[in-house]
């Protein structure tokens, strides 16, 4: 394996490693536009040029491979001057409309210019006009003037999504990114071009003008859109709720995980966060005289406790059914198993709705199972058949049905639920189950709590609270803990981390950042 020296630091890397990758291993970040680790090498922006001993010309570090004994200087005067010249070239036809550009604040053109740019412009001529603010698909809007033609988006649609919508047309300084005739950028992964665009050329229609990026806060999370468990960042803003129509979650961005989603996220997941902001159950409700009436936690929990206790005393644990949800975290499911299974003695605990049809699936990221934690629920052994539970409800054996999150809107399910004496619904959003419930307990979404999901491959991945639970909703952990207290079950968990520790014998902090495999 070759040994190479970069900026005075020696490193041994595998044969075939490029200099830019070797530098990254040493923590040296070489400026780049066209280079992206998930795409082929274009070598066209010429920003990553470095000086290499015994080579008269500067070399692009994204393309040149390490050789034993190579000595590289990334920030020599020559390299920096050349980089500065490239930046000046790139700004020649750039509109410099940063004040109205959504990328401002996370723009690589701004960033590198801040570092090494030439501040006084000597460009005195007219700039070339191109198409601006031009929607090219349901999620993406294009500004050709801001584009620096790094071709990342073109390579993404050619190599990753393999949908071939984008190309570079014309030549010389008239070159532009555009759609091929008759095409729209409408594929399952179109949002990724926004992430990889280093400048403000490709922007998110959903996010545009909603919030300046420097007001965004960020939290690591896991997408709950399907069983893949793509790693995400939740970008949110709690400080300025009067902006963005009160939208707290403003966008999702993929977070690199080499074993799960690499750099990517599907549009379904990226734009599937609306439920966090909309149609939420904000307060506890109790059914009174046939109507769901606004209530409070004390009353709702009291009613839940009473119903459960009565059923237990009169008919025993066979009279209680629990339908957990594959949307819940491992910790929540563990706690459900503990309280209902172990302490209460309930046998009928299931999670998998027989009415949920498999969705779209492909050979890349998207899974047919649209739940983030089916595997975790299976692993917890909460595998009673949900149809049987509902049938027992309809038949009158089960008196109290505790449903988490599920929307039982299938005619068959509605029919089975019709005569259930007590339905306790614990969930995040209004749905048909909630509307039929006797007690409605508002819970927090995954963005409002801590926990882990186990993806379909058995990888346990941690997500964290980005924003507090909306209004009076509480995390499932809190609700279940309060309930356990009222049921006089002695539990000793102060947060979901304690549950994870009990389940896995490991703390959150000890988890591999890319997740832990089951077993």
């Amino acid at each position, binding site marked *: 394996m070759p040994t190479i020296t970069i900026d005075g630091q020696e490193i041994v890397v595998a044969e075939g490693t490029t200099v830019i990758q070797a530098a990254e291993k040493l923590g040296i970040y070489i400026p780049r536009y066209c280079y992206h680790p998930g795409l082929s*090498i274009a070598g066209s*922006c010429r920003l990553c040029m470095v000086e290499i001993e015994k080579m008269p010309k500067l070399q692009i570090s994204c393309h040149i491979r390490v050789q034993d004994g190579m000595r590289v200087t990334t920030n020599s005067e020559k390299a920096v001057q050349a980089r500065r010249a*490239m930046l000046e070239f790139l700004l020649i036809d750039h509109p410099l409309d940063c004040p109205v550009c959504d990328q401002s604040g996370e723009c690589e053109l701004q960033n590198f210019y801040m570092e090494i740019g030439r501040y006084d412009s000597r460009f*005195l001529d007219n700039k070339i006009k191109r198409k601006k603010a031009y929607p090219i698909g349901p999620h993406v809007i294009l500004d050709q003037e801001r584009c620096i033609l790094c071709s990342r988006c073109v390579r993404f649609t050619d190599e990753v999504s393999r949908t071939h919508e984008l190309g570079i047309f014309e*030549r*010389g300084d008239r070159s532009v990114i555009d759609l091929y005739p008759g095409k729209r950028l409408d594929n399952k992964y179109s949002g990724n071009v926004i992430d990889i665009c280093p400048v403000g050329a490709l922007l998110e229609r959903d996010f545009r003008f909603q919030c300046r990026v420097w007001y965004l806060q960020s939290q690591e999370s896991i997408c709950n859109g399907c069983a893949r468990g793509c790693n995400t960042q939740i970008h949110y803003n709690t400080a300025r709720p009067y902006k963005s129509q009160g939208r707290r979650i403003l966008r999702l961005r993929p977070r690199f995980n080499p074993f799960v989603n690499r750099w990517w996220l599907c549009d379904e997941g990226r734009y599937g966060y609306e439920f966090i902001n909309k149609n939420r159950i904000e307060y506890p409700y109790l059914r009174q005289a046939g109507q769901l009436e606004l209530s409070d936690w004390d009353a709702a929990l009291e009613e839940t406790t009473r119903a459960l206790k009565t059923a237990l005393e009169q008919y025993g644990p066979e009279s209680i059914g629990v339908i957990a949800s594959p949307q819940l975290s491992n910790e929540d499911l563990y706690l459900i198993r503990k309280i209902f299974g172990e302490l209460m003695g309930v046998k009928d605990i299931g999670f998998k709705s027989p009415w949920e049809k498999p969705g779209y699936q492909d050979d890349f990221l998207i899974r047919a199972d649209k739940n983030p934690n089916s595997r975790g629920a299976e692993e917890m052994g909460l595998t009673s058949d949900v149809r049987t539970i509902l049938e027992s409800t309809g038949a009158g054996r089960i008196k109290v049905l505790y449903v988490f999150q599920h929307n039982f809107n299938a005619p068959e399910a509605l029919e089975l639920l019709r005569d259930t004496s007590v339905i306790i619904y614990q969930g995040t959003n209004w749905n048909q189950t909630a509307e039929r419930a006797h007690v409605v307990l508002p819970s927090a979404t995954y963005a409002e709590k801590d926990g882990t999901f186990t993806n379909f491959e058995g990888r346990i991945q941690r997500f964290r609270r980005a924003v507090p639970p909306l209004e009076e909703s509480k995390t499932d952990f809190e609700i279940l803990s309060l309930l356990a207290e009222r049921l006089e079950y002695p539990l000793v968990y102060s947060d979901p981390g304690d549950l994870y520790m009990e389940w896995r014998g490991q703390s959150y902090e000890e988890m591999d950042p890319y997740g832990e495999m089951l077993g």
Partner: protein
Amino acid sequence: MPIVKLVSEYFGNEQARNLDWYQKHGGYAAARKALFEMTPKQVTEEVIKSNLRGLGGAGFPTGKKWSFVPETDDLPKYLAVNADEAEPGTFKDRYILEWDPHRLIEGIIICSWAVGIHQAYIYIRGEYVRPYRILKAAVDEAYQKGILGERVLGKDFKLDLHIHRGAGAYICGEETGLLESLEGKKGWPRLKPPFPAVVGLFKCPTVINNVETLAHLRCIIERGGEWFADLGVDRNGGTRLFALSGHVKRPGVYELPMGTPFRELIYEHGGGIVGDRRLKAVIPGGISAPVLRADQVDIPMTFDDLNKAGSMLGSAGVVVMDETVCMVEAMHTVAEFFAHESCGQCTPCRHGTGWVYRIVSRILEGHGSEDDLGTLMHAANYMTGTSICALSEGASMAYRGFLTQFPEEFKYHVRHGKCDVKEKRQAVA
């Protein structure tokens, strides 16, 4: 030095396009000799001995280029003939294609035999309609008479030759841009390494040679590499076609031994300057080559001597400019060309060419400043050594040529907002 007619032997001879006539006059004898009497290795050695260099402009030793192709047979090997002659001032290949297409086909057979190639492509400039028709007829005839195809000249050696017409982009003359275009893609030059000799057309080993380079092979095989090398000087073997244009009395294509001075080409063969005016400048090798001043015309025309003089022999397209030419205007024309033809793939060329063109246009309109001259030089400097292919380098060299060879003219323009040459010209008229 005298005109030596090797490649240009049949220029002006309508008969030579005819296969029978060509064969009757010794045509395809060299190819037969190579196929039946020489091993591929011997052919390559002869070419190495000849000091033949790539005559498309880069001047890379031809035999050496062939020897970079891996000898293994696990992948097919290809020959791409560069007939995308588009460097302004260059029109030598056109003469070969129009007057002597069989000499090219013969060269293609010799090269293919030497390297072990069974598929060859001629990438011909799209605007070359007449040369294309003539070449197409010659190739068809060669197929009919068994010179190309399953058994080349009766030998158990297969060679297919395809002609591919370009669509009008200068960049497709850059060898890897040519390969991309041949593969049906946008003619964007590739990153090197890998070089085409190893990963070329359709990801297979590929030789890319210029028309004239291949046309020289007949004489080299007929009369030996040493004989050819002796015609030239040092490491610049044989003769070369010089395309002479501009303010000369007899423009045209002249075949001269390497090492002939420009003065001889311009004044003896070209008959001197039109109207017997004074010579001002010479672009020695297509417009990418930095311009020479009149006092530099005694430089011998070799790759090496011109490199020493800070210019290059390039494609040997010699453009002569007399005293009535404004150098700012000349640079403007050159800058317009490069801005128009830059493929736009890499940053320095995409923006550099456009920027330089806009600045020079402004200077020409009388709105330049001294600072602009510094900016031009800066832009030119960073277009060298930073780009994917040689287009940017060529443009940069050309710009710097004008700026450093004729600084006083540029200064006059920016100081006075007008052109003194033009004024003098009008006064003369």
